[in-house]
């Protein structure tokens, strides 16, 4: 009897569904009409650097993401290959989740794993990225390493559209450490700054833009002392040649 009641109930539901199919079912248009997830791969920097002391470097900075408007997962890669030592001077991989917190700002949280030549480090990351007034792209992160050391980096970039194809971009990066980590050459306080100026041309839509530019890198304070002690330079000028790519 119970069973009969259940099947009757099922039958009446089925009839209702037939009479008004679109109301009874999940709206299929919702799956097709609204683009729910997005992905992207880009290399903001993919370049060859030649320094004023004849040093040669290959630098890659890129990221890939997958997600929705509300939540994206992002992999960020940063590497510096040094020709003279045949080794990665910098090799960083970040895996973060990113979510909007304001019209033009996203918060990020995740991990950063550094595996360059020398000691490795793992960091927890909390970051903020977005667009400041007057179109400055800003990215800043707080890192806490597995050694217990905290540091903050800050990056800002401005793109001046000379035309819709020729773009002059100015960038500034800095790193400040709250404590010393001698093993990886980090002193307390302002560690380093990098200022770059690149002129690019959008050759294939926005997906391939070769550029030339100059970059100035400088180390400060204890960090500069540590670099000098290990035979490295504290200030470099580079001529750069590369391309910005986006898929």
């Amino acid at each position, binding site marked *: 009897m119970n069973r009969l009641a259940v099947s009757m109930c099922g039958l009446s539901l089925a009839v209702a569904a037939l009479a008004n199919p679109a109301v009874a079912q999940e709206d299929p248009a919702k799956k097709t009409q*609204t*683009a729910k997830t997005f992905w992207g791969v880009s290399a903001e920097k993919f370049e060859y650097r030649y320094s004023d002391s004849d040093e040669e470097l290959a630098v890659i900075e890129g990221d890939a993401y997958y997600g929705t408007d509300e939540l994206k997962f992002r992999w960020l890669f940063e590497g510096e290959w040094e020709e003279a030592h045949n080794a990665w001077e910098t090799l960083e991989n970040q895996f973060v989740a990113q979510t*909007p917190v304001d019209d033009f700002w996203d918060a990020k949280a995740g991990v950063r794993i550094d595996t360059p030549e020398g000691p490795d480090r793992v960091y927890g990351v909390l970051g903020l990225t977005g667009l400041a007034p007057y179109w400055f792209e800003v990215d800043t992160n707080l890192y806490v390493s597995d050694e217990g050391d905290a540091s903050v980096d800050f990056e800002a970039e401005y793109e001046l559209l000379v035309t819709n194809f020729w773009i002059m971009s100015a960038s500034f990066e800095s790193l400040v450490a709250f404590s010393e980590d001698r093993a990886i050459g980090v002193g307390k306080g302002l560690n380093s700054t990098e200022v770059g100026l690149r002129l690019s041309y959008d050759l294939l839509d926005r997906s391939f833009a070769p550029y030339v530019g100059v970059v100035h890198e400088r180390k400060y304070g204890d960090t500069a002392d540590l670099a000098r002690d290990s035979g490295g330079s504290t200030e470099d000028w580079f001529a750069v040649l590369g391309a910005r790519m986006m898929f």
Partner: protein
Amino acid sequence: MLGLLCGASLIDGKAYTIFAESMGRSGFARGTLAPEKGMTAKVPELREAPLLTMADMAGHMDHGGMDHGNMDHDDMGGMNHKDMNSHDMAGMDHSDMKSDDMAGMDHSDMGGNAKMDHSAMGHGSMGQGEGETLPEDPFYAKGSGLMPTASNGGKFLSYADLKAQNPLYEDREPTREIELRLTGNMERYEWSINGTKYEDADPIVLQYGERVRFKFVNETMMTHPMHLHGMWSILDVGEGKWNPLKHVISVAPATTVYMETEVDAPGEWAFHCHLSYHAASGMFRKIVVEGGPDSAVAEGKQSGNQGGES
């Protein structure tokens, strides 16, 4: 319409180009009106693409005189937009404005509306020398960079000039008003209606037989051509029963546009911005028309004679 023109107007024996540029000047459409097959006329060059101004930025910037977008058309019920903007009025001075043509305009009511200023209504350009200021148009934000100009220096035609020749419906009071704010974030490529994307929104439910007034408030810096399937969009140009019927209503940045719909097609209909990316990313709603004759559901969908194309 075209046939009529060919027969009646091309008695000079010349061919004419009909030329339509896209707003971004990425392309154009060209047609030819000619008394004989094979004739062509000169095709003009694309003009410079228009640039947005502060006026097109709606609520994103603070600027005086931008309240035009919020102008309440209800207070202007008797005002004749077409005459106000027509080029017959170009030389008109303010004393003439109080003539019988304007009798329907309630000045006291307008005075009571602090948001409305006279320049925003096109009076500013009246009685001034030709070419000194562009005429105002209620379908563009005051000072909008998107305001078209006629290529030959004459009057440009806009929505304000549209008028139905054969009204399909009796004019009547709408049963209710539904406000649709056209919203989005250009930096994030997000588009929505009332701040909600399609995937998160409930359908808009209408009752068969009602007449609904839609209020579009464009809060973005882009033009959104809004398309209601299945039923006509009766654009409010202040002409009452002579308001034109349209499939798509283009809502310029920082403007408020009204349209009414006679709900005469039962079933489910799409309602969306006609820029494909905007529609796909969420500037889209499902309209459900409840009630109505059962047979009309199938009939209306098959014959498509209920109004707009689907």
